[in-house]
């Protein structure tokens, strides 16, 4: 009986050790692959390293869209601060001046090199971070 109990104890310890380390690994993978979401104002106050992928949400500033061959440059605003974005590729159909946009990319000397530009399916969409204000 005692041997049996000892065996069970070892099994339980082993199991919790395994699942514990598993959970830690998942958490580690999570933490090293997060995209932080900022508004332009937060982006300016926050210190962000160049190799950290960020998401920035705001409205496309009127009159800021400028094309250079296949690259498109524009400015995102939250009506208090702005950030410049540069992107190569096709912007979504709902992308237009004065409407909401979310950009995913890396900061490069204060400018955002975008990997992805997202506009919402819904034309009434506003980034949630702006809506709260």
């Amino acid at each position, binding site marked *: 009986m005692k041997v049996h109990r000892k065996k069970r104890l070892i099994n339980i310890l082993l199991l919790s050790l395994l699942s514990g380390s*598993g*959970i830690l690994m*998942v*958490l580690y*993978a*999570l933490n090293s*692959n*997060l*995209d*932080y*979401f*900022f508004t332009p104002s937060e982006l300016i106050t926050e210190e962000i390293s160049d190799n950290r*992928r960020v*998401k920035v949400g705001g409205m496309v500033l009127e009159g800021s869209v400028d*094309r250079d*061959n*296949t690259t498109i440059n524009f400015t995102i605003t939250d009506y208090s601060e702005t950030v410049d974005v540069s992107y*190569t*590729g*096709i*912007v979504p*159909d*709902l992308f237009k001046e004065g409407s909401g946009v979310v950009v*995913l990319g890396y900061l490069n000397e204060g400018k955002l090199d975008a990997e992805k530009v*997202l506009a*919402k*399916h*819904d*034309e009434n969409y506003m980034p*949630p*971070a702006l809506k709260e204000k």
Partner: protein
Amino acid sequence: MILDIAHYLSILSTAIFMLTFTLVLILDRSVSHSTLLIKRSYSHAFLLFLISFLLYVYLALTDNFSVSYIAQHSNSLLPNFYKVTSIWSAHEGSMFLWIIFLSLWGFIFNLSTDRDLKVKNLSIGIISIIIVGFQLFLLITSNPFEVVLPFAPENGADINPVLQDPALAIHPPTLYLGYVGFVIPFAYALAFLINKDQSIEWEKKVKSWSVMAWVFLTIGISLGSWWAYYELGWGGYWFWDPVENVALMPWLAATAFLHSLSVASKSNVLRIWTLLLSIIVFSLSLFGAFIVRSGIIDSIHSFANDPQRGMYLLAFIAVILFVSLGLFASRLNMFESSKNIKALSKESFISLNNIFFGVLIFSTMMGITYPLIYELIYDQKISVGAPFYNAIYAPITILATMILVISIDSRWGRTIDTGRSFNMLYISLAMGLIGLSLIRYFVGDMSFIIMISFLMGLIIIFRYLILVIKNILEKKYINTPSVIAHTGLGLLILSISANSILSSEKVFNMKPNEVRKFENIRIEFNDLELLNNSNHDSIKATFALDHNGKSFYLSPEKRKYFARGQITSETAIKIMPIRDIYLTIGEQLEGGQWVVNVQLNYFIRFIWLSAAMMAFSGLLIISNIIRRKS
């Protein structure tokens, strides 16, 4: 008038489902006349609800814009087909359809015969009370029957144009059928626990129901992926969007559940675990409903931001989980301590499989909920994207496939014959390595993890090929569904790996009559055409492509829909066995130039083919069960 009738019928149906539940509670469940009463009560409640839904379809077809929901999501200019599908293009109607399907599964189950009257009646009662919960949710928080006051608008606001698409018309219904189908194993498992008779083989009884729901879920997810590929213009098949993930979790759990069901019904171990899984699968389906319906997570799919809906669903799920897990815990002692699982037996391998599925589900759940928790604690919005999921799914899938190929010859209750089985493994490993070197020769350099995935995909396919040939030669039994599904898994791994390293894209600025070259494809911009259609105007660009001496035309479009003024892109895709040529146009620039995006998407068809193989294997399992019965 018709609207009122439909509304009353829904309310009446809720009352009769409640009555069914009460009957199950108070009647003697083991006698046949109370069974008949319960059966009839359920059927009537369902039929009333179905009539209510059909009336609603009629209202949508006849452009009854005094109904607020129809006015907001349909339009008199829409073709009839989309007038019907507009019903599930937003929250209220989707919920309506969801409950119709939920009660439909119960209805078919209700008609089936079962010798264990008690368990069957209890299941009907459980299904009824779940339906009541959802019907109240529909009628109280998301009423599709609300009218526009004081005057009905003349014309509807239109369905979202990206949703005007045949694949999208059938994607939600198929997905919902899958989600809610797991109510049958869930209810039967609870009934089994309440009944406390462990000699009843509930696992065998719910097998075909569970497989059928799994087939719908598989097809529903693939349809969504296929639709996103050609409609959104991004050219991908999976984006790790939270709403995709909440569909993936029940699929993973259900796949684990089907595996453990076969263990529990064949060798009487893992019974407790299988019961728990049936609860987990259904809860994850409900969790999916909660995530999508509450708008708690920022996603391209989220419909509505209504905290009341979210709170109701959360409370509902909490009650269901609390009751079912409480019941589960209180009945743990009804099983005599089960036999130990023999090392390296089929049972042991499937247990390992379940652990892998568990890790994937847990990680996905973390990926979905972590941003919510993080924001609560640090007041900082974050999102979890593809890099995290790739970091988890790639290694786990590789580990799981290793176990799979080792386990292929394993038997129930017996240790695997390592000698014979491993010979086959070495042969398929050798063949896989040859295949991998060929791939490397043609494709060039690739990362280690991609190489390993190619190898694993190849080994699975070769190992099953050897198995089939060997069993045909020795005239032995072949488990065809298992072979097809797992070969599908191998194909899926291969095509995802190939797609990720081969696919490429390029953006051009082009004027009509200009020519560009991309890889070995010559692309000539022929002309632009303006088209007027019933509910949208469109600019159609025509390109002549020349590829290895074969020439063809592709015509991507830009559309402007009248009702909402929304602009959408239509991609043009040349489908070829190995790769798709995928063309989209962006905006017009100054000087008459257009932004044109060309993508080469490799092996993308095989991704859906492998999903189709899995779904087909499920149908085979069901047809086998039916044939064996008759």
